[in-house]
């Protein structure tokens, strides 16, 4: 089920809210907490099973098995047993991901052909489960003894299929002790509607042009190619951050505080900064559960000592760090999909991030971000970021690597295609209002405007009108069954 659908907005969500906030729960001994949690769990399973009922059982099996491993980690203190349980945890979860996501790809490399459908959101919920198991292993979090609560954490429908990647520690307290306050509900509704608008009113329209440009890149003119990747870059931001807004908003309505996932990534002046602002929960997950543990592993510490001996202290210390960075970016690429495009996409960021670290440029740019006022170097840094982002998104979006190269070739006039054609003018005319609005809304412009309004009453009325307008327009757009895909459902 998608958030921006009739069935979700007008059937699923109202029914869930009706059960969840029914007045009879006040009579329960625990204030209805158990009842509410069960409502949320059942709703989540229905939500997940709506499109593809079979896959609910895979998720449930994953929850049960991870629950048992967690209980084992809670019970045994002997290091040897814990290590076996850790191995079981990794084999189970990475194995599950491997079978559904990568088996076909690997078979393809060896000339075989296996086709397995990808369960919705498996990359997201597997990472959530892993964070739980690893935190229990590292004694960061207590074992969850109630399987229903662990199941609720994993399957909670607001964040189940496309993040934010909520860590167990983020919500472990709130599973049993949370308050649904009217302030949180108001905020949640507002956040949900903003997200809905980003998705339905911006991303979906930008998608038309992006899809056209990437459909048969062979015939694109130079200008159409640029317009296409610009539209896709904007589309994926509004699509994905809109989804996160909706997830965070829905979570808030039910009393949960999910971590933020986006912080205006496209205003970044370096990729060091960009990856602190884009899909933040994935970046910090990779850092804490892959990048740091890998560098700190015995093998990598030894490697560091050895490299220092050969290259000298200054250069040597970067060897394990850069090698870990390579592993990190390959993992980032593969996480997005079993496809050479994503591998190359990851390698591009590996090169950019290594360059920024080793040259010190990343730090210089970060310092510049903090400085006030207009500066020429800010523009230079920003052009650098936007340029490579547009290239990276071609790799990300194109259907295959040859098509991606062909597309990039077109962008730089490397093919015999014309510089500009009829299609370009037609599409540019179609989005002459949408494009500037979309670019403006990638920046903290709206936040700045609402900060300028000093009178709370005026601000509240303004917000109310804006939310109502966004909601009505979004619903109209959905009801007329406008094109409505969610990009991150595929990961």
């Amino acid at each position: 089920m998608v958030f921006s659908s009739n069935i979700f907005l007008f059937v699923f969500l109202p029914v869930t809210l009706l059960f969840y906030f029914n007045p009879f729960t006040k009579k329960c001994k625990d204030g209805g907490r158990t009842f509410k949690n069960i409502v949320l769990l059942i709703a989540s399973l229905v939500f997940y099973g709506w499109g593809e009922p079979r896959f609910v059982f895979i998720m449930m099996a994953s929850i049960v098995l991870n629950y048992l491993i967690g209980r084992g980690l809670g019970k045994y203190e002997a290091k040897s047993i814990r290590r076996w349980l850790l191995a079981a945890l990794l084999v189970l979860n990475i194995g599950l991901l491997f079978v559904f996501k990568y088996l076909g790809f690997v078979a393809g490399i060896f000339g075989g052909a296996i086709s397995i459908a990808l369960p919705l959101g498996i990359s997201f919920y597997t990472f959530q489960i892993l964070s739980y198991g690893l935190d229990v292993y590292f004694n960061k979090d207590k074992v969850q003894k109630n399987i229903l609560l662990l199941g609720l954490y994993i399957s909670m429908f607001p964040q189940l299929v496309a993040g934010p990647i909520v860590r167990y520690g983020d919500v472990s307290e709130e599973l049993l002790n949370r308050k649904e306050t009217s302030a949180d509900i108001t905020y949640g509704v507002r956040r949900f509607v903003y997200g809905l608008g980003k998705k339905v009113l911006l991303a979906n329209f930008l998608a038309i042009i992006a899809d056209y440009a990437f459909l048969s890149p062979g015939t694109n003119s130079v200008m159409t190619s640029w317009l296409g990747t610009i539209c896709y870059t904007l589309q994926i931001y509004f699509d994905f951050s809109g989804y996160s807004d909706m997830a965070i908003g829905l979570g808030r309505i039910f009393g949960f505080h999910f971590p933020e996932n986006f912080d205006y990534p496209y205003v970044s002046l370096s990729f060091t900064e960009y990856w602190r602002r884009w899909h933040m929960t994935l970046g910090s997950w990779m850092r804490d559960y892959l990048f740091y543990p890998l560098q700190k592993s015995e093998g990598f510490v030894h490697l560091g000592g050895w490299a220092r001996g050969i290259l000298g202290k200054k250069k040597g210390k970067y060897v394990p760090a850069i090698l870990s960075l390579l592993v990190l970016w390959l993992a980032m690429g593969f996480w997005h999909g079993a496809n050479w495009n994503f591998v190359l996409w990851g390698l591009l960021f590996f090169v950019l991030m290594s360059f920024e670290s080793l040259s010190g440029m990343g730090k210089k740019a970060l310092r510049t971000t903090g400085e006030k006022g207009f500066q020429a170097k800010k523009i230079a840094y920003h052009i650098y970021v936007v340029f490579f982002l547009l290239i990276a998104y071609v790799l990300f979006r194109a259907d295959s690597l040859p098509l991606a190269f062909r597309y990039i070739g077109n962008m730089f006039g490397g093919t015999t295609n014309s510089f500009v054609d009829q299609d370009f003018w037609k599409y540019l005319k179609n989005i002459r209002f949408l494009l500037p609005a979309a670019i403006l809304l990638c920046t903290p412009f709206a936040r700045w405007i609402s900060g300028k309004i000093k009178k709370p009453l005026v601000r509240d009325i303004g917000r109310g009108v804006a939310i109502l307008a966004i909601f009505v327009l979004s619903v109209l757009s959905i009801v007329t069954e406008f094109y409505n895909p969610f990009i991150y459902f595929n990961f």
Partner: protein
Amino acid sequence: MMEEKIYETLNEIFRDVFDDDEIVVDAKTNSDTIEDWDSLEHINLVVAIEKAFGLKFSMDEVTGMKDVGEMVEIIKARGTKLED
């Protein structure tokens, strides 16, 4: 072990890892106040501290340490091989 001594040792480590003899660490020193302290250098720093004090940080501590003050608390709580 005395806190002073821990800070003294940490100071040496920080100067060595970040290659800057002007660093003076206190409880509030964090990755914002030391420019070179980023995710690429973090583990180098952690491993150097582990070596000097003869202890191992848990993964939780590695990712959770927000400033030098927290580091010192962990080191104090752990007891170390450094002589008083």
